[in-house]
Every structure is written in structure tokens, then in C-alpha cells.
């Protein structure tokens, strides 16, 4: 895969977010890529544009053309047979570009690496942001997009996922 600086492959997330904040300001275009999902992540992504979530108000837009896309929202376990198409899509995007692995499949939670699938997206594409969840709800996706462009802080960093009688618990719960 082409990992030239212009294509944003080898940037550190900080540089990348700086570049995005500089270049895209308040409008960022999203290309989605299904590498073998079960169609639920796609439904949730479609709902991002629905009245309840309306990601356009935040300056995000879906675009069918990777040429116009700044952010690649990848779902599914990256099936090997789809690798060519995935690389093509990534290469077709102008840099700097962000790759967001979306959903437990894309993070290796459902399918192991085996003859059929790579198991995770980052086996093929340089992932910049990971969004857990099966499926990640539209709210989680919004948060993920916010993290991707550096508008929202990551909260998961200081979540211990240990319960009872430690103060962290309160911060974790909404």
C-alpha cells in the first residue's frame, strides 16, 4: 500500500488531526466501506444522517466518491477477497485522510484471522481511530467521528472497567 506522507499513511494521529483541523475546518466528507459486515453497522451509519442524529449539523457529510472523501469509515472483518477493493478505495482518497475502524468485527471481536478474513481492519489499512461496539450506536459513531477530527476528547483512556466502590465508576456511567 502507498504510505507516502501526502496520503497520510505515516502521520502520527496528532499531526493528522492538526492537518485535518487546518484543512477541513468544519466540513469533513465520509466514505463508508463495508468489508464484510452483517449489514447492521451499515444501518446505524445510515441513521447518522437521520433526523435524530443529523450529522450534517456537525459539518460531516457522506460522499459516494472516495476522491472527495477525507475519512474512511470501515466496517466488517476485512475479508481477504475484498482486500483489493479496500486498498483501491483507500488509495483513491486524497491525503491527509483518516481511517476509522468501526464495530467489533473491524476490531477483531467476531472473526479471527483465518483463510477467509484478516480478522481486523488494521491488518490492511492504517487505522487511526477505533470505535468499539456491536454495532456502535449512532451516538458512539458521532463520538468516534469527533475523536477522529480531534473535536472530542477520548474518554475511554481513563475508564478502568472495574466496578463497585471505586470513584471511577461514576465517571464512567452517563
Amino acid at each position, binding site marked *: 500500500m*502507498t504510505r*507516502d506522507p*501526502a496520503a497520510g499513511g505515516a502521520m502520527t494521529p496528532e499531526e493528522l488531526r492538526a492537518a485535518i483541523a487546518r484543512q477541513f475546518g468544519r466540513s469533513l466528507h465520509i466514505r463508508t466501506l463495508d468489508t464484510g459486515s452483517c449489514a447492521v453497522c451499515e444501518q446505524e451509519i445510515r441513521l447518522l444522517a437521520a433526523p435524530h442524529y443529523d450529522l450534517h449539523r456537525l459539518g460531516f457529510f457522506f460522499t459516494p466518491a472516495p476522491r472527495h472523501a477525507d475519512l474512511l469509515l470501515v466496517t466488517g472483518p476485512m475479508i481477504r477477497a475484498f482486500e*483489493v*477493493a479496500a486498498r*483501491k478505495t483507500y488509495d*483513491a482518497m486524497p491525503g491527509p485522510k483518516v481511517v476509522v475502524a468501526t464495530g467489533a468485527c473491524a476490531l477483531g471481536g467476531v472473526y479471527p484471522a483465518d483463510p477467509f478474513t484478516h480478522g481486523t481492519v488494521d491488518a490492511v489499512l492504517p487505522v487511526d481511530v477505533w470505535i468499539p461496539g456491536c454495532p456502535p450506536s449512532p451516538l458512539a459513531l458521532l463520538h468516534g467521528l469527533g475523536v477522529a477530527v480531534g473535536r472530542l476528547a477520548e474518554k475511554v483512556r481513563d475508564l478502568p472497567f472495574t466496578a463497585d466502590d471505586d470513584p471511577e465508576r461514576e465517571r464512567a456511567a452517563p
Partner: protein
Amino acid sequence: MTPLDCYYIAAVAWAVAALAGLIAVRAAGGLRACCALSALGGAAAAAGGGWSLLHGDTPVMSLGAATVTGGPVQLQATSLAGVFAALLGVVAVAIACYAPRYHQPSPGTALYLGAYHVALLGCLAVLAAGGMVTFLVAWETMSLACYLLILRHPRDPAVARGAFWFLALSEAGFLLVVAAFVILSAKTGSTTLSGIAAHAAAVPGGWRAAAFLLALAGFGFKAGLVPLHAWLPEAHPVAPADGSAFLSGVVVKLGVYGIALFAFRLAPPAGAWPGLVVMGGGAVTAAVGILYAMAERDIKRFLAYSTIENAGIIVTALGAAMIFRASGQQALYALLLIAGIYHVANHGCYKTLLFLEAGVTEHAAGTRDMDRLGGLVRRLPRSAVIAFAGTLGIAALPPLNGFVSEWLIFQGLFQGFRTGSHLTGILIVLAAGTLGLTGGLAVYAFVRGFGIPYLGMPRTRQAAQASERGQPVLGPALLAVLCVALSVGAPVVLFALSKMARTVTGVTLGPLLLPGNLTVIPAHTDFAAFSPTYLSVFLVCALAVPLLIYLAGRPRARSVRVPVWDGGIVSFKPRMQYSAMTFSAPTRVTFDALYRPSVSVSRPADDDPAGRSGPVHYAAPVTPVFKRYLYRPLVRALEWLADLVRPVQSGDVNLYLLYVFVVILLAYLLGSV
């Protein structure tokens, strides 16, 4: 020395070339020599034509005493014919530059070149004919020679059929032309054209009308007026490329010349109706021609139909000119005559160019089927550039020449309101609308005609392996330059043409057309104006602007080159690109009534389960309306008549003697009455 002397030089050169062709073309050297002579003749004819434009008509001069033609050969260089002669010369030069690389030295080529040069002679004689007998003999010579040059490969049945279509229709036309001439000369008692023109007053209106209509039909066969156009799409594809270039570039124009001859020089019928008839016929021809062109995938058939369209445009202009003359609008009369003749010159150039390039394509890629070509712009860059110039010209896009003449024609037609009669005005504007539709479709058709073969991916292996090594370039390139010149140098051309118009119509257009400073106005200062020269310059500059902007603002960072976005499919295949037929599908759907396509989809056997792999055959051929509903019945009727008269041909000598006797008797009786 007069323009005629140039014609003599041309004639001699071509006659020698014909002989040289017949004798010497077994060797490449002979081929080149023959073509050199041909080019010399062409140059002479062009010079003579141009000269006679400015010089005006020469007096009729007769050669020799009684000859085979039954009377002295009468010649005259008229300025109307001058334009056509100049075009003839230019086309001859271009083809002479083209032929040596296109043809292989062979007996077939020898015969072909012989016939071709005889055809050139015939055309020249038609244009230089001062007398009706000379004209008719020359005309027939030209037709027969053209028939022979179409028959380059006589053993191929398709070729034979195409050639026969040409011969049959030209003979039919010839009879009508003869009838027209006979009427006029009988009524005027003169056999020279200028004589007929002089005594035109003596011809009763009815006879004038009859003569004119006969001539219109007769020459209409050559000019390809619908529905008399059937030979063009049949003959053009089967003839060699330069042959079909010659047919479209010159022979068709001679039909136009004949119509102009009868409409403007010889006894033209009075009243507006003949003009309306001509204009209507022209408009219909233009529309039908371009519509059928949209349904063609064979490049040469496509170009042939586009020739029909352009002939229609020219004839429309001439018809409008007749109308304006009848309504006393002398300036517009002259303007439209000029515009029509201008279009003759333009079309002669770019259509010849395009046919020659079609020949290059056919030799380089081995097919004329657009849907088997593609991507030629990379394989044949030079011919792509040249063909692009021709395409811009024929699509009437500035800065090429087609735009100038069509602009003038439209400006003339839009002034139909000046005729005074509402009905006429409306009809003229209707014709303008039809031409507008035609022009739009022409752009569409030639986006297809250039885009499908030259752009995209090669659709077949031959197309992918096409190479322009050894392919002729000079001839088409010459014509491309001429196309640009005819547009940039429009004021000069118009100056010459206005001289011609003055000789023909007696109207001095000068300042009404060219107020100086390279501007052109359509006969009335209060209507419109533009300057082809400045427009061309401006367009070139305008082209430079985005380039400069790009150069100024191009990204400083290293740009990344990635393949075309194809939706991520594994491999993009040539069959996934627009084909010629699918590109024109919208038109074919819109004008369903005309095309009557018979759609047929055939899949693997119906008992097969859905989704089984298998080829799907799809075809939507267009119904050849005119052939089926006009010509086939005619042919049937002829055969029926032939059967009727067969008994007369018993083969019994005595019976034939009886016929002779009866005829003599009748002649005697009639004579004594």
C-alpha cells in the same frame, strides 16, 4: 489567359494521370508519379476556380467542329462553378497526397486510379460546361467513372450492391436532368447555358416550373436529398476511403451545383413556392440525415448520413435565397447564396478529411465498426488530432469553419420576417428551427463519432494494436489547415464569394457583408455581427487562461498518482464503457417513430434456471424505412412492368423488322403533318 486555361492545364494533367495510372501503377514509382500529376491538376483547377470567382464569367467558347458530343464542345468558366472547381482542385490535391500511402501498387489500383481521374475530368467538365450537351455528356462520364471507382473490389457482393445503388439512382437522376434541359433548350431555342439564361423570358411559367422541378429531382439524386439519398449510405462504405471522400467532397456537391444552376442562372421559375419546396426538402433532408447518422455504427455509413445532413443544410440555404429573391430582398438573397456556397466549401473540406481519416482507422485497426474500436487517441495520435479538427468543423463549433457558414445561414433564416408574407416568414423560421435541431444533434452525433473510436479503452485486440506507422498524414493535415484557414480567413473568403454573388445575382453586397475591421454582418446592419477572426483568437486566448491558472495555482506538494476510481472492481473491462449504440440510445428512444427499432433479447434456453451463466444477445436494429416502404415497392413495380413488355422481345427477326417499319411509318406521318 483566362481561368479556362487553368482548367485546360488541370484537364491535361488529369488525363495524363489517368493514363499513367492505367499503365504505370504496377510499381510504387508509377503510383507516386500518377499522384504527383493528379496533385498538379488539382492545384491548377483550384487556381482556376479561385480566379474565376474574382474574374467573373468568361464568354462561352466552342472547341472544334461536330464531335462525338453531337455539337461543338462549349466551355465556360463561371464564378458560380468557380467555387466548386476550387473545391474539386483542393480535394484532388489532398487525395493525391493521401493515395500513395493508402493504395498498394496493383492492377486493381491501376484501374481504380484510371477511373478516379476520369471522374475528376468529368467533374471539371461539368463545371466548365458552357453548353447543355457538354454538360450532360460530362455528367454521365462522371457518373460512370464514379461507378467504376466504387467497384474497386468487384468480386465482393457488398461492393457490387453499393455500386449498383449508385449507378441506378444516378441514371434515374440523369434522365430527369436530360428532360429538364430538353424543355429549356426547346423553349429558348438555345443549347448554351448562357443562351438559355438570356432567353429565359421566352419560357412560359408552367414549363419553367416543370423544368425546375425535374432538375431539382434529378440533381437531388446526386445531392442526396431525402428520399432520393439511398445510394450514399450504400456506396460510401464499400468504396476505398479516398473514393468515398471524393464522392462526399465533390460529387454530392455537383448535385448542389446543378440545383443552383437551375435556381439562379438558367430560367428560374417565378414566385416563392419553388424556394419553399427547395427549403422544405433541404430541412427535411438535414433532420433525417443526422437522425439516421445517430443510428449508425459503421464510421463511413455514419459519415455518409452526415453528408446527407449537410447537403440538406446547403439546399435549405439555397431555397431560402430563392424565397428572398422572389420577395425582393436582394441583400438577403445574395447573403444566403453566399452562405450556402460557403458551406459547400467547408463541408467539402472537413468531410473529405473525415473520410480520409476513416480510411486510416480502417487500415490501422482493421475495422470501421465504432463498437470494435476505442482508445485510438493513444494509438494514432496524429490522425486523432486531425480528425478532431474535422470533427469540430463539422459539428459547427467555433473556431472551426463550419461555425461561420452555419452562423450566416441561421442569421439569414432568422430574417425571414423581412419577406413581408407572414406564412413565408413562419415557414422560414420553421426551417431555421429544424436546422437548429439538426445542429444540436450533429454536435451530439460527432461527440459520439469522435469519442467512441478515439477515446476510452480499446474494445478489441486489433484496436489495441493499431499503429499509424506508414499511414498517410499529409492529405488530411492539409485539409485540417484549410478548415482553420476557412474560419480565420472568413472575411477574405466572403469577399471572394460576394464577388461571385454579384456575378450571379447582380447584387453588390460589399459593405452590407463586410464593413471592414474583419467583422461580418448578415446583410442588415441592424441585426447581428461577429468576427470569425477575432473569435478564433479570443477562443485560443480563453483556452490559455485555465492553463495559466493551473500553472499558477498548482499544488506545491508532491502530487500522488493513483488509478481511476472504478468502484473497487477487480478489473475494469472494455465492455463496461459506453458503446456507440448505447450512447445514441436516448435519441433512438425519442425518435422511435422514425427508427422503428425491432428489439430482440435472446437468452439461454427458457427451461434454463434463472441466473445461469450464459451470453445474452441483444439487438435493436433500425428499420430502413425508405428502402422498405419506398424503394422496394418501386423495384417490384419495375419488375412487373418488365414482365409486361417481355413479349415484345420475342427474338424473331421478322418481328423486329416490323417494328422498324412501323416506326419509320409513324415518323413519316408525323413529319408530314
